[in-house]
């Protein structure tokens, strides 16, 4: 699972592997099995999460870790998730979701919804002639001059 691999990569202090930009990759995410015997709960000094990784995460998730407490919480969260490594999953197919053995319901191709423009637009702070209004394009993360993010400040 993605969380596991993230944990391992972070501990190794490297950037997690990126997905290719537009082509879907052929391989499944099933290859991440823990190596060796089940590990103990990682105590003691684990490697610090690297700055590049944190910046990458901030970028992707559009969050700001803000201060050392935030980073510390992330660290602890990773440690917590690493407990999953205790389980030996050799030869076990990864689960997709708790629904994976249910039947996928197929709906008939009938028009049953829509025509609620007014209701939907009520949610929007700003509208223009029944369009939603959004900021222009994708604005790159602003690196304000005087105000560095916590991470940059701590470099």
């Amino acid at each position, binding site marked *: 699972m*993605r969380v596991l691999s993230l944990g391992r990569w972070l501990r190794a202090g490297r950037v997690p592997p*990126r*997905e290719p*930009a*537009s*082509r*879907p*990759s052929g391989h*499944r*995410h099933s290859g991440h099995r823990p190596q060796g015997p089940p590990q103990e709960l990682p105590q003691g000094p684990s490697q610090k999460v690297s700055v590049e990784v944190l910046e*990458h995460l901030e*970028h*992707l998730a*559009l969050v700001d870790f803000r201060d050392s407490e935030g980073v510390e919480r992330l660290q602890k969260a990773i440690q917590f998730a690493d407990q999953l490594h205790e389980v030996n999953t050799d030869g076990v197919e990864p689960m*997709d*979701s*708790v*629904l*994976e*053995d*249910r*039947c*996928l*319901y*197929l*709906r*008939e*191709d*009938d*028009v*049953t*919804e*829509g*025509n*609620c*423009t007014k209701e*939907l*637009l009520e*949610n929007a702070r700003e509208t*223009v*002639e*029944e*369009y*939603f*209004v*959004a*900021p*222009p*394009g*994708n604005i*790159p*993360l602003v690196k304000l001059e005087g105000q560095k993010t916590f991470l940059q400040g701590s470099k």
Partner: protein
Amino acid sequence: MAAVLAMVARGCGGVWRRLRQRCAVRPGSGPFPRGERAVACNARGGMMSAGKSGLTPWIPVVGLEIHAQISSNSKLFSGSQVQFAAPPNSLVSFFDASLPGTLPVLNRRCVEAAVMTGLALNCHINKKSLFDRKHYFYADLPAGYQITQQRVPIAVNGSLSYSLCIDNKMSQMVTKTVRIKQIQLEQDSGKSLHDDARSQTLVDLNRAGVGLMELVMEPDMCCGEEAAAAVRELQLILQTLGSSQAVMAEGQLRVDANVSVHHPGEPYGVRTEVKNINSIRFLAKAVDYEIQRQIEELGNGGTISNETRAFDSKLGCTVPMRDKEGKQDYRFMPEPNLPPLILYDAKSLPANMNHQQVINIDWIRERLPDLPSVKREKLVEQYGILPEHSFTLLVWQQDQNCNSRHSNEDGLPEFFENVVKQTQMKPKKVIGWILNDLLSYLKQHSLTVKESPVSSFLLADLLNLLEKKEISSTAAKQVLAELWKGKGKTPLETVKEQKLELLQDQKELEQICQAVIDGQENEVMAIKAGNQKVLNKLIGLVQKKTQGRSNPVLVKQLLEKKLSE
């Protein structure tokens, strides 16, 4: 530049030869004898660019990613309507707007469309396929992720065969194949209208959630023409199946091209992705431009970066798109709200399941309509027409479909078949009248076959007159021009009105022939001396005298008989 385009590409020699010929027309690039082989061009190129290092040929590699909007009443995961051009945000359900608490419910028709398409393209249909989330932020993607099939798509490993004409005359067609890597179901995003003046984007979610089939092709093509031909054939197939109307102008078929170049024997070069291609013609232009651009860039010692470029149709070139922040990390994860999609076939059909919940691949396969390639073969077999004619018949129908929203059921092939049924003229001759005369009228007046003022019945009637030798073929063309005005007259009425009937009275014809012979002493002597070509002049004179109402073959016979007396 033309000299640099020496090509040893897989089967692409012909096309690149033509391009070089076009380039050769420009001043300064020197004369190129037609039909030169790549080797000769190499030699010539070597002479031209004496300063540069040895010219090794470039192999362009083109791969396409095609998004085809599924033709269905409602969207992929919700019950809102699928329709082009509706008031903004009127075809949007709560799920499409990504309001909390909504869940995706898969549309059966979309799955069937994808299975049909997969079968038509010789794919292996995965009986179990999975849905995933692809995360990225954009205003027209309200959920922040798109539901797609990244891990296990619905169909894989197919192929698409298409025809390409080697020269401009369409007299030689080759069949090529491109491999289909996979077909997957995914959601469409909404539409953004960028308002740069007010620094805002207006978002319309009518399109958000519409079902798409993404077809990923392997990079088996090597030029714009191949790409265009492949997409045309795919369009035809999709329209025949009904799984997508594939009208590029309405965004129902979107093509992105991945282009790279490399030297033979070396690994593939860095590829660029070309987007914003709005028609098949532009696809060919964009691909060819990008190939040339890359060759020039690399030839000048530059490098190609793995970027996304947009095709500017006005300038006919590709330009770098607005810089996206580095490579995207889509953080794929399984879609937790959708179990795996299970498809069945005749063998694995479960006994006690509700019919409506079961999709049977074999049942769908049995009901697939005749694919275009099969239709073409049948026409050739049944009517003895040439493959290229068969190709044109179907391509015209496709062009019609592209220009109009409504699928044209009574198309040109049907018209042709109707005429054949109602006339004694051989299909091989009828096809000439359809493709040369009727088609040019239709094109001139921008009409569909349905709108033609000349019905198949009228045309058959006219061709019968011609076949019975009651009129000459020139007269027939005249009658057709008159019929085209749509005044409701029959061919026979028109013939009588314009006095176009062939003279049936042999005696009268003989008299006229004799009169011509008597009046043209010099020509008669020339013919008797052995110059047969002058006979045509005499025939022409007879035609004039009879006001085009004489059968030229008969006239020739009579003249020859008289001259030999």
